[in-house]
């Protein structure tokens, strides 16, 4: 599936009675790379979960490749091309690595699982292990690989580097970059390591208490010391 655009307007959402997101609007054109930043608990994960259809939405619209998807359930959105890698590494604990990957195939032939093994050779070694027996980093690899196997047109990555060895992080970011550059995916990324995120992204948005507090390019953000300090709570970027 080629990359698709994602437009969000006036989105507000939360958990049951708790409202977390208020009036979020932004757009990512097809093939763009967008970083979502913000301090602890500002709603980044909630934003992604809402796009994936897993929270309570109070209002607003979500358009995937021009088509309104906000009324759809989670699986329908996935079949429309939305890929979601959650922060909490939701591997299926009682399935083997290979079965985990199988679930992500979305009907592609079984042989395609090899693509995941090429991306993470470590997973191939552990293909018969249960999800629950993997190390933290291996689980992270599995979650990411599983979603990419489904060839989403828009990919939501919630802290995909967490717990990965530095070498793997580098390789992975490079791989994401290639996918986006080839026009195969639009990528939205949440990442705690701000520098990595800025190196990767074309655009940046910053969330503050569930609202968009800043939008712009990485270069603009690097130059804006004040914003970095107040919204990200970091003394400066190197």
């Amino acid at each position, binding site marked *: 599936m080629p990359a698709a655009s994602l437009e969000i307007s006036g989105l507000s959402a939360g958990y049951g009675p708790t409202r977390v997101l208020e009036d979020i609007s932004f757009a990512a054109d097809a093939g763009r790379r967008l970083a979502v930043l913000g301090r602890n608990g500002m709603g980044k994960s909630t934003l992604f979960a809402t796009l994936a259809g897993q929270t309570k939405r109070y209002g607003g619209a979500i358009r995937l490749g021009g088509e309104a998807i906000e009324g759809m359930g989670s699986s329908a959105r996935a079949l429309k091309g939305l890929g979601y890698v959650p922060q909490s590494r939701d591997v299926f604990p009682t399935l083997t690595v290979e079965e985990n990957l199988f679930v992500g195939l979305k009907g592609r032939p079984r042989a395609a699982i090899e693509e995941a093994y090429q991306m993470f050779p470590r997973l191939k070694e552990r293909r018969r292990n249960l999800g629950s027996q993997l190390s*933290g980093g291996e689980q992270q*690899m599995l979650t990411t690989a599983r979603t990419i196997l489904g060839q989403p047109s828009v990919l939501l990555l919630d802290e995909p580097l967490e717990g990965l060895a*530095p*070498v793997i*992080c580098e390789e992975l970011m490079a791989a994401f970059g290639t996918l986006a550059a080839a026009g195969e995916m639009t990528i939205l990324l949440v990442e705690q*390591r701000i520098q990595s995120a800025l190196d990767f992204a074309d655009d940046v948005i910053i969330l503050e208490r569930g609202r968009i507090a800043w939008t712009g390019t990485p270069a603009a953000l690097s130059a804006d010391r004040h914003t970095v300090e107040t919204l990200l*709570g970091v003394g400066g970027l190197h």
Partner: protein
Amino acid sequence: MSAIFDVRNLKRTFGGLAVTNDVSLSMAPGDRVALIGPNGAGKTTFVNLVTGNLLPNSGSVALGGEDVTRLGPTERVRRGLVRSFQVTRLFSEMTPEEHVALAILQREGRTGRMFASHRAMPDVMDEVHALLARLGIAHLARHRVSEIAYGQQRLLELALALALKPRVLLLDEPAAGVPQSDTARIEQAIADLPADLAVLMIEHDMDLVFRFARRVVVLAAGEIIFDGSPDAVTKDARVRQAYLGSYADARSVA
């Protein structure tokens, strides 16, 4: 100084795969050791073996000169060996205040009390709030854990370990999932620890590792391939290739 923590020839296999292969490691009071290594190298398994959550095939663990290999996990905790978890393990229906109070009461052997409330114990409550304040989550003291963001849960996870006042502290990726803005709090909390405490930290955030560690141990495929100073580790070719990648370059340059 004599070792307060001494692991010898620890070995554990899972279905033929030696996940921890003959690992020996000792720490003296005041040590600040970083344990790094590729994903699946066996770091968490090592911690599980040391704390008694997993049984080793062979090898021994000693704490302050006492062999604790045969003791269960709780006994080891009572002897001062405390860990934090890589994936937070908290009581989702309880508040941070209750978490920390429970840890303090347990440390003092007061959890058997049936006719009192921790809220009626000013000494406990003061310590609870001081600790939560130190980690910047005092304002969440009475929220349910299930309602607070993951990064804040990580801080609470650390608070629990600290509340037990360990002699040996094992931290399994304490900063994973904590935003850069808050890693400083974690660093500070660790820096404030009593000087005679031995700390072993597993972490993939190299900035944190190099600010923290005075000694780095690298585990790969279940074996220790390096044990030395932070400066030396970036120069080690095997470590660079297996783990650090270009980070080593950046660091060497810096």
